[in-house]
Every structure is written in structure tokens, then in C-alpha cells.
């Protein structure tokens, strides 16, 4: 990469290279059958160039042909977008414990054996079909730029997810466990999943109306997606955020605290610098209901004349290949602070309501405005604290800037999910549309 930067400097351009190498093994079981083992060994490199206040971007998998990569970069630089920043010089950063070498010894045979063990355990507790997958992931990334930044990190993660399917196909109660290396799934997890699933073999038919809804952590991304959109420096710059002028104001229930903490290396995927080489830090977005900060990458910090917050990440809203994505503001290590209630007590606190175990269609609707109108997948109907059965063909709808003022209580434990590390949250007065 140093040679590549030297070639760019010869063209009198600032340059930044981002290299990512990943090894992934994933084992999939469906209905007790080892369905697939897939592996991938991927390397790639993104190059950004800045010259005369313009910026170019290109990427490759072929790390041997630097000249072609540079040629593509120079084409995009000539016609490219305006640059609002220079590549930063970032010195030494705290060492994070993001890599557990034990993962190297974890074989696909062991991943398959764990899935088989979990399948046996769950099958003894429920008649639901059990689907499982487990993966191990090792990544190495390096950010190098002509300002003198040279940062490298290596990380590992292990994840196993179990889904208990409800009648009618692939909608089911699911939960995963995630660590920097192998974690054995516990009886507590098995019992939790079975106790939620078994009453849902009955069908309940609640009437359309406003009621309590308990979002499990696995369903919360339908809401956090909108919060992330509304508090992004990009949305603020583009005048899409409904809270652009609300910094310092109490906009949500005081039980809600939301922050991003890339430095927490108790969790997998911790990182001390973002994908542009800006130092990461813990950033509070919402503190006890008060909107505290927006988050920025270098570009939108430059456009807004704000300080970059270390959130220039190469992630898309629904995943994507980091090599191909230019840095943009993204909260990749989101946390919602836990409350003080057990999950069991949250269910007991529901006179009439629905447990959202997952949501369908979260990507649909007016996301920057905070609107949501999402299917329940699955939804469990509760009366007087007891699960009555699953609800089919039900939707919940509203706007997060109304809903997050209606928090009844928050669970005392957080779980790592697709949208962040979150507890379950019980809301009141949520609009539920059903067939009845």
C-alpha cells in the first residue's frame, strides 16, 4: 500500500488506502439437517485521492495491479465530487482487545457440533422446527494515508443464532449469542426461546386498536434505523432530519439513553479508529431523553463545519461490501442502556398488548421522518400478562419521535442484535392494525 500512496503522491494528490482482509466460515442447519458450510477468503482495497479540492474513489480485489487502481482513481478525481476535508494524521491510539486467538482453533466440525447440540436441546423443549446457523469471522483492516496515518487492527467474532419457527413457515422467535470467540449456548437461552414459542402455537385474534407493544431486541432495529437516520450528520446537512434543531432538548422519554461505543472491547467488533483513520470515542446520542449529539464522518463534518466524531464507516444500511462503500456517517456500535425490569416482568406488565419478536418491512416507509409501518414477524398477543397466541397479518405503525416518548419500562439486560446492543423495551399506546 505504501507504493500505491507513493504513486499517488507523484501525481501531487493526497491519498488514503483502506485494506480489508476477511475469513468467514458459516455453518447452516435447517430442521436438524446440516444444510450448508460455506467459506470465503476475501481481500480488497479502497483508494481515495484528493487534489485541487476534488475527491476520487475506487476499489479493487486485485491487489497486484496498482497502476490500474490508480488510473481509475485519477479518472474519478478529475470529474469527482468536491472535497471538504484533508486526510487526517492520527497518531497512536489505545490498544483494544478485539481479537481472540482461540478463534483460529475453532473448526467447522466444532461449529456443526454446537449446532447439533443446540438442536437437540431445543427439540426436547418444543415441537417447533429449529433452524440454526453459526459462523466464525476474522478480519484485518488497515488505514494508511499520505498525511502519515498508519493504523491497523485485527478482530474476531463468533455468532450462533437459533430460530424456532412458528406454524406458517419461516417466521419465528430467534436470538443469537455473539462473542470474540466460541461461546457455548446456555440452557437459559433454550428455555427462554421455548417458553416464548410454545404458547404461540395457538393463534390469537386481537382487535385493531392502540395497545402496549414490547419490542424484543431483535425487533428494535425497525426503530433504531430511523433514529440513526435522524441523527446522522448527513441527514442534518441534507435538511432531512426532523430533529436538526433539537440538540439539547428533551425529545424522548427520560428512560431512554442511546450511545455509540466502538471502544468497548468486551464486545466483538470494537475498534479504536474509523475507516477514515479518525479516532473513535464513546458518543452519546440521547441521554435520558435529551438529544445530545449528531454523528459525523470527515465529509459531513467538513460540510457542516463540525468536528468529525469517528463515525466514517464503510457500511450500508443493509450491509454491503465495505471495500465498495465510500465512508459515510454510520453508528456501527450502537447501545441502548438497560433499564431495571426483567423480561418476565415486562410481559406481566402488559394488560393488553403484543410482543414484537421481529419485524418485517423495516426498510419501507418514510425513514428520515421517523415513520414506521411494519409487519410483526412474529407477534405474540398478551392479555393480563399471559401470552395468548401468535398474531398473523398484523402491523404496527407510528413515528419514533412520538413512540419513544411512550416508554413504559426497559429490560435490565442487553443483547447484541443486527441493529445494536439493546434490551427489550415496552411501549404504550402503539397503533396495531389487524384483520379484526
Amino acid at each position, binding site marked *: 500500500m505504501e507504493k500505491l500512496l507513493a504513486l499517488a503522491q507523484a501525481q501531487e494528490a493526497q491519498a488514503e488506502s483502506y485494506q480489508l482482509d476477511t475469513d468467514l466460515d458459516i455453518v447452516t442447519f435447517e430442521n436438524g439437517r446440516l444444510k450448508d458450510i460455506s467459506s470465503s477468503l476475501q481481500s480488497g482495497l479502497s483508494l481515495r485521492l484528493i487534489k485541487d479540492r476534488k475527491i476520487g474513489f475506487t476499489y479493487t480485489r486485485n491487489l497486484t495491479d496498482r497502476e490500474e487502481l490508480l488510473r481509475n482513481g485519477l479518472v474519478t478525481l478529475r470529474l469527482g465530487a468536491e472535497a471538504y476535508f484533508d486526510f487526517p494524521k492520527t497518531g497512536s491510539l489505545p490498544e483494544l482487545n478485539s481479537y481472540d486467538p482461540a478463534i483460529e482453533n475453532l473448526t467447522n466440525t466444532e461449529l456443526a457440533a454446537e449446532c447439533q447440540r443446540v438442536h437437540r436441546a431445543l427439540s426436547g423443549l418444543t415441537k417447533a422446527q429449529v433452524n440454526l446457523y453459526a459462523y466464525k469471522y476474522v478480519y484485518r483492516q488497515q488505514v494508511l494515508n499520505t498525511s502519515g496515518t498508519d493504523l491497523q487492527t485485527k478482530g474476531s467474532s463468533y455468532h450462533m443464532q437459533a430460530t424456532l419457527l412458528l406454524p406458517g413457515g419461516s417466521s419465528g422467535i430467534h436470538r443469537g449469542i455473539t462473542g470474540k470467540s466460541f461461546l457455548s449456548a446456555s440452557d437459559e437461552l433454550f428455555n427462554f426461546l421455548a417458553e416464548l414459542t410454545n404458547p404461540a402455537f395457538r393463534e390469537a385474534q386481537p382487535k385493531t386498536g392502540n395497545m402496549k407493544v414490547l419490542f424484543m431486541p431483535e425487533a428494535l432495529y425497525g426503530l433504531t434505523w430511523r433514529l440513526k437516520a435522524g441523527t446522522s450528520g448527513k441527514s442534518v446537512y441534507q435538511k432531512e432530519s426532523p430533529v436538526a434543531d433539537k440538540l439539547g432538548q428533551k425529545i424522548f422519554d427520560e428512560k431512554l439513553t442511546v450511545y455509540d461505543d466502538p471502544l468497548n472491547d468486551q464486545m466483538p467488533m470494537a475498534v479504536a479508529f474509523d475507516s477514515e483513520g479518525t479516532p473513535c470515542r464513546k458518543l452519546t446520542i440521547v441521554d435520558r431523553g435529551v438529544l445530545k449529539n449528531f454523528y459525523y464522518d470527515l465529509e459531513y463534518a467538513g460540510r457542516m463545519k463540525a468536528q468529525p466524531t469517528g463515525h466514517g464507516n464503510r457500511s450500508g444500511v443493509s450491509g454491503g461490501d465495505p471495500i465498495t462503500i465510500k465512508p459515510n456517517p454510520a453508528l456501527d456500535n450502537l447501545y441502548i442502556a438497560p433499564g431495571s425490569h426483567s423480561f418476565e416482568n415486562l410481559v406481566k406488565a402488559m394488560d393488553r398488548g403484543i410482543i414484537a419478536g421481529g419485524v418485517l418491512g423495516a*426498510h419501507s416507509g418514510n425513514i428520515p421522518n421517523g415513520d414506521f409501518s411494519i409487519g410483526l414477524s412474529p407477534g405474540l398477543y398478551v392479555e393480563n400478562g399471559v401470552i395468548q397466541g401468535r398474531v398473523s397479518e398484523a402491523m404496527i405503525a407510528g413515528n419514533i419521535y412520538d413512540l419513544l416518548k411512550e416508554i413504559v419500562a426497559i429490560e435490565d439486560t442487553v443483547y447484541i442484535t443486527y441493529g445494536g446492543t439493546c434490551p427489550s423495551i415496552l411501549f404504550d399506546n402503539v397503533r396495531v392494525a389487524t384483520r379484526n
Partner: protein
Amino acid sequence: MIEKLKAILARADADYADLRYETKRETKISFNGPDLSHVTVSNTDGYVLRILKGGGFSTLAFTREADAEKALRTALENARLIAKNSRQPVRLAAAEAVRDEFLPKLEEDPRQIGLDEKIELTKKYNALARSNPLIATTSIGYSETVREKHFASTEGAVVREDLVTVGISGLITSRDGNLIQNARVAVGGSAGFQILRSREEEFEKKKKIVLDLLKAQSVPGGVHNVILNNSLAGVFTHEAFGHFSEADLIEDNPTMRQKMHLGAKLGNDILNIVDDPTKYGQLGFYKYDDEGIPVAAVPLLRNGVLCGRLHSRRTAAEFGEPVNGHCVAEDFGYAPIIRMGTIFITPGKDTIESLFAKLDDGLYILDAKGGQTSGENFTFGAQYGYRVKNGKVTDMVRDINLTGNLYKTMQNITAIADDFRLTETGGCGKGQTNIRSCHGAPHILVQNVVIGGK
């Protein structure tokens, strides 16, 4: 390249193996509001190896040629591990080993068009979309993907095909005080760059809709009779029904497999659904899938009765049904999986006028805003809609999301119009993205649809 692939395959200790090498050239241009915010031209490449050994079938994607030996070793280990733990050995349905090359002859090949011209065209459409003070912002981009695929198998198949896809698409956002609305706009396809020219009308139309949405009422949640326009009826076909015609989604789900047996009466008698990616010029067109199998048109539902299914070689063998060339990968990073190509409801007998007369009172909802399915249940959003009273379209409504049960909804399709339209851009995300996923339909009348409201 083919010789290189053959040389790697020759070292595979396998009952069957195939190797796909692809280059992928992407050009992307983005405008956010007035600003050109992003330009990239990039070349990437990589390999996908599949090995069948002793009844275990495994895939490994790799990007460094130097990793070929490691890939062969790991894929073999994985295949053996699957075989050891599997109650049922994997078989691949027999197929002719095709030796062919298909390079589409495009009217205007985007590879021959300068980056400057692509930027100017995108800029022009973006400016059109922005030309009103109530437009808060736009996010409109040009996307060009050129996949050059080389495929070889130990059975002797050698296939070379190019897939060239272009589009200009994005989001237009309007704002009045605290009220923010948006709508998607998209033009594109697989037939060449010319399909992007002279499309001003589409951007003007969507700008007007997003401005009108500022004055529209929220749709009331509850059960409604609705007419879905072509785009929405296509999304319904894709999301609610289409995914369950993909054999890999139901093969290990006994409940769905039982319900989706060939001969099952799933829909109203008037309902016919086909997946046909063989028509050149459509977004979903291709000639060979990523197993080297020629794609075929597959009738899926005839008079409401399930009559076909989409297959890979593996699932065709398992179900004892014909291979039909529907096993497709996003790119060199992925194993091929079963995908719809161009799925649609065939035109019915009603005119648009008679369809509205049959609806009488209800909602007319238009243009997809994403959809998702889980088991029998599906959810999808509409960009806008109108109340219909006495068969006449009246006020605009917004905030429309529908949910439903596949089987009930297919029975509740009570009238199908005689018009027809396919989508120009795609993006199905079944674990990997298929940018050429194409769907379409006539206008259809559906009774008793659950709408979330706001």
C-alpha cells in the same frame, strides 16, 4: 481464463466441481441535493469454487489466485463434513454440459460512453427532480455494473456470459415545515445505455407526486379493498408468492413444502404466474445461470394451481423436478442460490375501467417502497395512493403499508386487468443482492387487505 479454471479444477479431489471467475466493473455517480457527492469507477474480480464429494456439497469464494490450493482443500473438508453429518446425500440433477459464449449486443454499450456524459445525464435528471422550493433534497445516482463471467465444470461445461446493467435511480424528498415526504424514482435495465435517455417525464412525474404527498392525508389503518398498480402487484408476486416458488426456501421446511406441493390450489382461478427471464431486453434477462444451465421460462401458477418451481441442480434432484436454470449469484463473492429472474402475473380480462368499477369504494395504491416476506406473511410499502369512491379516483393518501397472508391474499385477487408492465430496476436481497431481479403484473383487485396506516 477458461484454461486457468480447468487447471485448478483438475486438482480437485471431487465427484463434481465447478469454478466461476468473474470480473465486475462498477461505475457509480451520486448527487445529494445540488452536489455531486460521489464518483467511482472500479474493477474487482474473484473466484467461486463448488465441490461435491461423497454426497456433501460445499462452496468457497476467494479473491487471491494464490489461495486456490487452500480453497480446494477447505472446500473438500467442508464437503466431507457435510457428507458425514447428512442423512441424505446431495445429488445434482443431470444436465447437458454446455459450451457456449453469450455476449449481449447492446444498442448503446455503456462501456463506450464517457464518464463525463454519464455525470451530465444524471445531473440533468437530478436538477429536474430538485426544481421546486419544496423539494428539500434529492439522492439520485447512476449505477453501471458489468459482470464478465467465466464458468467451467468437471463435467466439461464451459460458459462465458456478460451481464451489463445500468440505472439512474434514487429518492426525492419534499418538506413543508416539519412534514417530510419522499418517493423513489428509477429508470434502467439490461438492454443498454439508450434506455436512460429522454426519461425526463419519469423524474417530473415523481417530483409532482412527492410534492402532492405534502398535502395528502394518512391512510386509515384497517381492512380495505384495493387496486394495486403494476409495480405493487409485481412486488406482491415477487415477495408473497415468488419466494416460495424458490425450492431452497422450502426444502427443509416441512410445513411450507406440504403446502407448496405441485397441484396445490393456492389462488383464485383467474390467477396465472410465470417466471420468464428469457426475453432479451428485459431487466431480468440472462441466458445461462451460475451453474452453466440455460434458463427456461417456468409456469408457476396456472388457474390458481401450483404447476412449477424454480430450481438449482441440487434441489431439482431432491424434488425430482426439471432443472430450469434459476441458480444465480450476486457476484464472485457468493455461491449461487435460487432466484427469480422475471416473475409476473399474466394479463387478465378486465379493462382498467372495469377493474375500478368492480372496486367501487376502496383504495388505489401505487409503486413499491420495499417489501419483505416471512413464512406465509408478507409486508410491503406503497409510495402513494388514492381513495376510490364509486369507482372514481379521488383524494391522495400516504403512509401506506400492507401486510397479508400469502394464501388468503391469492384467493382474494378477484379481478386482473389486461394491461402489463415490468420493472426497470431491481434489488432483491435474499442474503445477497440481485440487481436484475425483475417483476411485473397488470393492475389487480384484491379484497380485504390489512393496511397499517400511521
